[in-house]
């Protein structure tokens, strides 16, 4: 309750929450407003927004309804965002927790692996994974999760390093509790707040990475994602720029929303830093 009140006191955080909820609503309403396949041909290609009352946001170079693709694309973008973030956070917390809690040789090994991942540019690694394993939507999501976990692991490790020597953890050791209990029940709940905040960053990165893949036409062509739509507009960018601009704005607002939510969470979880 106290947490919600702290969060609600921050106007930027509320705007962020409203944006994310709006995108969520778009995804939920998509099948009601635009039943049927958004990728099916709907009318004459490249109609400008407002030119035809049937297509308020116009049509793309293949004559598909942009509004329908936008609404269905919200589902895809959010799904990829949440799933890839979940994968990255689970891997990151697992590796970071083990490295930070045990230290020594375990820490050295796991952190060298993490650094190996971090030194490769994210997007190149993603391209390689997609090139090798194919580009259907599941593979793309998993691949994004795999390239996004190292910062989560480093953050979790840092929290664990400082928490594992606290008196309350030592007291639990003396009570005869297992390492699993110490990690999961004592340290992890205290280490989680910064990781949750960082998860919003991971989510923004995941949505952007998928869009970038789609722009290069390397994402799943059989789903109507925002990135695919931007990619379709690439060839007509100078004359019919709206094809790329409309989904671009959608991505911009979604990422803005997610980032503001993250900032709001940060302020609400660290009340001492709020108001600075």
């Amino acid at each position, binding site marked *: 309750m106290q947490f919600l009140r702290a969060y609600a006191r921050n106007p930027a955080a509320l705007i962020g929450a409203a944006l994310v909820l709006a995108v969520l609503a778009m995804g939920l309403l998509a099948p009601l407003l635009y039943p049927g396949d958004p990728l099916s041909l709907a009318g004459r290609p490249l109609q400008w927004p407002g030119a035809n009352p049937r297509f308020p946001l116009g049509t793309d170079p293949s004559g598909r309804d942009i509004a329908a693709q936008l609404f269905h694309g919200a589902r895809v973008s959010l799904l990829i965002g949440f799933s890839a973030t979940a994968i990255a956070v689970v891997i990151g917390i697992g590796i970071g927790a083990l490295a930070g809690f045990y230290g020594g040789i375990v820490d050295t090994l796991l952190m060298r692996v993490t650094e190996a991942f971090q030194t490769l540019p994210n997007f190149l690694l993603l391209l390689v994974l997609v090139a090798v394993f194919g580009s259907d939507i599941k593979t793309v999501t998993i691949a994004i999760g795999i390239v996004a976990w190292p910062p989560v692991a480093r953050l979790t490790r840092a929290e664990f390093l400082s928490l594992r020597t606290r008196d309350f953890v030592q007291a639990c050791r003396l009570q005869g*509790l297992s390492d699993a*209990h110490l990690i999961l029940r004592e340290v992890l709940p205290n280490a989680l707040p910064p990781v949750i905040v960082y998860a919003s960053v991971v989510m923004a990165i995941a949505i952007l990475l998928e869009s970038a893949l789609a722009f290069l036409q390397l994402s799943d062509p059989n789903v109507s994602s925002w990135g695919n739509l931007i990619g379709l507009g690439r060839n007509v960018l100078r004359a019919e720029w709206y094809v790329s601009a409309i989904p671009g704005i959608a991505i911009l607002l979604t990422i803005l929303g997610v980032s503001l939510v993250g900032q709001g969470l940060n302020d609400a979880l660290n009340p001492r830093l709020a108001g600075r």
Partner: protein
Amino acid sequence: MSLLEIRELSVALPAGADRALALDQVSLALDPGEILCVVGESGSGKSVTASAIIGLLAPGLAVVSGQIMLAGEALVGQSPEAWRALRGRRIAMVFQEPMTALNPLMTVGAQIAEMWRAHTDLNSRDITAHSLAALTEVALPDPEGALRAYPHELSGGQRQRVMIAMALALEPEVLICDEPTTALDVTTQAQVLALIRALQQRRGTAVLFITHDFGVVAEIADRVAVMQQGVVVEQGPAATVLSHPTHPYTKALLAAVPALIAPPPRELAAGSVLTLRGVTKTYGSPGMFRRRKAVKALDAVDLTLRQGATLGVVGESGSGKSTLARCVVGLLPVDAGDILIAGEPLPHGRCAAAGLVQMVFQDPFASLNPRRRVGDQVAQGPMALGTSAAQAMAEARALFGLVGLEPDAVARFPHEFSGGQRQRIGIARALAMKPRVLVADEPVSALDVSVQAQVLELLRGLQARLGLSMLFITHDLRVAAQICDDIAVMQNGVVVETGPIGEVFAAPRHAYTRSLLDAVPGRALFAA
């Protein structure tokens, strides 16, 4: 008219605090050449008084009424520029923690020089000469070396001397000392108190000295003001207030100061429960890339804890007493020697060790997990050893009753308890494992003196009822005198003297023990 006058000063706390006013109609007066001690427990408003005088109230605090007069000049409501000209030059302050009050990236000389650079237009050669003179005056062993030293290269006492030199650099009329010796060892504290006294007398500075320790008051104060909950409840000459207190709160505080007299020896059963033989622990083992010198934290320590007795381990910071505690409970491995509990070395399995030895920690705020209910934290130990959840929780409720808490408090979270109550929870958590030996590492050092007395009373009572054997680590000889049967004095990792506490206090054999006893503040006053 006094030099510094605080007239009916009221300072408001932010909305939602535990009370409306941090200071409520506080009136104090300070004359040149006198030391006024403001005493009180945490939350009494003594530090807020100091920050109001120097115009550095924490954000959220605001003066609502009253006035502060310095030599007839009103301070409340001045412009920030006027405050800046005043601070350092006419009112100076010495803080509690000298390490955080000094900039770790600047040499001591550069930091002292800033005083003259900010407030005067002396040239740099004169400034260096002044800095050197200032450091010489506070009796630093090597003033010229100290000028070039960085704060981490000095000891705590030396850093506090530097702070005092900086505060007195511009010969201020008023010096505010906010718990300046609380972070220091007892022998260093005695030296710093003597230094403040000497400088103050030589220069006729008016000193406002904030402290929680009545021993320090007895050492240094001319006059005393006692604060409780933002109100000055009693003030007067030190001798009168200390020997004939009138307000019940002052009486209670004075009564809570433990006497430095060992209790009569108790009858104890024969036999020992904990034996240490030649225990050695070295930090920073030498290696190719290690630059730091290896430090022997424990050097061939031999100790014996008698069954049902309390063995006090006393010493100053760095003496190895906390390392000793952590080695005994098995949190740190030893390099050499044996630690035997009931004749056996501590088993490697965590569960097997849990029933033999438990620990009570120093910091009541760090020793409980803030995100879990306190009852769960007490009950989880027995549950890990196979007790059913229902029975473990019933035992936890009984233990809460035993340590003087409401049994229903098991469902609450740590932040809902005060420091003293948290320490009781820590004791309950340790007792839940029914240990043979209880190790208490400075269990009352973080507590106010009245709460300290209650927790010591609790430990004494529990020992009588449960026959506990305790290893009691403390830096405070008064506390040791309250609870220990035997005592071991440690210096630089070596036990220099052991014996029954009465004998050691009455006739200390080792020079270090004597210096520790002599340095206890307010010894003359509270001896009786």
